[in-house]
């Protein structure tokens, strides 16, 4: 264990040094670098940064475990979190890029020409991102805590300091390139163990092709033991909850401010489309691997750990029992540990499997560094978003429009440091289960923003009254449903994590009805929306479309 701690610590420190170095060499000197990396990030690298930004501690640490526990029903997460990129790239990203602002609240404020809408969306952005960042910080705390057998709280503090340093130093420009590095580290750390496990179990190094057979064998073992089969549909939840959760995650993905802002960092609408495609490919590498991770892990537990005499269990079991994530008890007293006597916590699957499969110290350390990369990259993106909502939308656009560049950069940095500290303090004692909080953040993002952004870029008649009413009603509906569902009152079996399927249609209806009952927005605002139909080279002006062919400018 001594040696293992040393190797893991070494790998984590090496990656931290890399991130800080990248942030230092790409540090932001102007506001546009700080918020949108001067809009010069190539689509391929932006796609990779989106991958790092997007895949959080929940994806890296939690997803395989969720799939292992829920079987087919857990796959709602896979389809929901990837399908959101269709909505985002097809319906929102290119238009939002052409509109050319710094943040989501700034788009909403300028599109609807309303400071009330700006303030509401800035506050909603801060709430959503803040909820999410708490999850990341407690995630990194758990990783560090478990590795070094220190309380998770110290781990959280270490994570907080690292994130605050490089996010405030580099701004969006630094964060973009650290996210690229973090993506590479986390994806290698995720795939290496399953390639080894695939070799170990099936003799074939390509887990994506081999795990189908493993799933079938697990199904056979389940039948033998008299459990519901691993891949049977809706054994852990029901169809309506599956669909509601998948819908909520998709719409939430498309409306998360920290993801949308990454599309502002590229040059054109075309680059936004390519960013979306590259992003989902890079994300797909991990998401396509997660079911394999879950299957191999379950297979190894069922065949190599279950059925062993209780007094001859491998040494890793004690370590994980100590963390409270693993429970084993010989309840029927036959001296043999049966499969039904093992309770595996979702969050230990990814972290523990390399140990269980005996993949060696380096791989175990690599997985720890990968988990940290996943938590830090998402936290970095979230902090930039919180900082820009405060320093740009609230401080600069609403409070002090004459602030100098330097003042605004400092306000942004102060906002990052302050929100990191506050989030860190809350993360020391998390208010609930991390995956559940993350799912609420998706419900809130989708329920508050998706209809307003969608109608904002596609429907020129949409006005500020509709936007304000839609956001407020959407936010209220999401919160109400979450609390009702937690209290046991559900509609069609939809639980709190599926609140988006209720809130999004309500928000849409509110936007449309209120807009139609109130006057149309000013002509120039409507023209701006029509202009979003065409690429940058075409401009919509006074009811006519003009092609900029480089000849004389039209006055």
């Amino acid at each position, binding site marked *: 264990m001594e040696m293992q701690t040393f190797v893991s610590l070494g790998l984590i420190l090496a990656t931290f040094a890399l991130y800080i170095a990248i942030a230092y060499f790409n540090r932001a000197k102007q506001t546009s670098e700080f918020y949108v990396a001067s809009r010069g990030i190539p689509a391929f690298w932006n796609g990779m940064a989106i991958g790092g930004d997007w895949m959080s501690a929940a994806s890296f640490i939690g997803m395989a475990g969720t799939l292992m526990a829920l079987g087919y029903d857990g796959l709602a997460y896979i389809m929901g979190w990837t399908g959101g*990129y269709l909505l985002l790239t097809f319906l929102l990203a290119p238009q939002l890029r052409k509109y050319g602002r710094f943040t989501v609240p700034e788009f909403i404020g300028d599109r609807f020409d309303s400071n009330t809408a700006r303030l509401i969306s800035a506050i909603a952005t801060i709430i959503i991102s803040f909820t999410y960042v708490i999850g990341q910080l407690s995630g990194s705390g758990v990783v560090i805590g478990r590795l070094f057998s220190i309380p998770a709280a110290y781990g959280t503090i270490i994570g907080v300091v690292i994130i605050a340093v490089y996010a405030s130093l580099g701004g969006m420009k630094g964060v973009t390139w650290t996210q690229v590095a973090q993506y590479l580290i986390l994806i290698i750390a995720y795939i290496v163990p399953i390639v080894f496990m695939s070799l170990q179990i099936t003799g074939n190094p390509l887990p994506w092709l081999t795990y189908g057979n493993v799933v079938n064998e697990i199904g056979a073992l389940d039948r033998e033991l008299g459990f519901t089969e691993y891949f049977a549909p809706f054994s852990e939840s029901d169809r309506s909850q599956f669909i509601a959760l998948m819908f909520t995650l998709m719409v939430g993905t498309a409306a998360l401010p920290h993801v949308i802002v990454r599309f502002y960092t590229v040059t054109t609408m075309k680059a936004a489309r390519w960013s979306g495609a590259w992003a989902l490919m890079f994300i797909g590498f991990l998401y396509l691997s997660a079911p394999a991770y879950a299957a191999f892990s379950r297979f190894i537990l069922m065949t190599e750990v279950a059925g062993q005499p209780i007094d001859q269990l491998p040494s890793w079991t004690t370590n994980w029992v100590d963390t409270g994530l693993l429970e084993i008890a010989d309840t029927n007293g036959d001296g043999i540990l049966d499969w039904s006597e093992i309770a595996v916590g979702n969050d230990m699957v990814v972290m523990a499997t390399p140990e269980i499969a005996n993949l060696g110290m380096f791989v175990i350390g690599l997985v720890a560094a990968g988990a940290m990369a996943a938590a830090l990259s998402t936290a970095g993106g979230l902090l930039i978003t919180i900082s820009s909502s405060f320093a740009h939308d609230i401080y600069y656009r609403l409070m002090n429009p004459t602030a100098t560049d330097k003042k605004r950069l400092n306000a942004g940095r102060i906002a990052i440091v302050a929100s990191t500290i506050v989030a860190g303090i809350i993360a020391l004692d998390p208010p609930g289960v991390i995956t559940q909080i993350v799912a609420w953040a998706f419900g809130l993002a989708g329920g508050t923003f998706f209809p307003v952004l969608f109608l904002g870029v596609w429907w020129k008649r949409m006005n500020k009254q509709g936007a304000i009413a839609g956001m407020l009603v959407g936010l209220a509906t999401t919160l109400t449903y979450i609390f009702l569902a937690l209290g046991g009152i559900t509609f069609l079996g939809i639980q709190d994590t599926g609140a988006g399927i209720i809130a999004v249609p309500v928000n849409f209806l509110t936007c449309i009805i209120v807009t139609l009952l109130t006057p149309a927005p000013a002509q120039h605002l409507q023209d701006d929306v029509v202009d979003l139909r065409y690429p940058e080279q075409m401009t919509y002006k006074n009811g006519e479309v003009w092609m900029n062919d480089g000849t004389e*400018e039209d006055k």
Partner: protein
Amino acid sequence: MKKVEKKVADAYFKTRTTMIAIFLFIGFLVSFGIVFFAEFFSQFTFLGVQFHYYMASQGAVIVFILLLFLNAILNDRVDKKYGIDNDENVRISGGKTVDH
């Protein structure tokens, strides 16, 4: 500056919107469509796995990725057909964004 006929401009927008609608519909079928009839699809197998499980764990994600690349490639073709020069886009976009 050259004026673009309303018909041409509308056709550009319509082509893009139609593509998006078709892609979203395909995306909807492979995810929500299969989930809705999961029990029915579970009688088929693909690559040794029951079809509803395969689609949810890999098939849908692969289709999503292909749709996004198809959208990016086809959109570039449409742009080319309408005489859009991407270098111009980059230049204009740089000047027009609000970088305050």
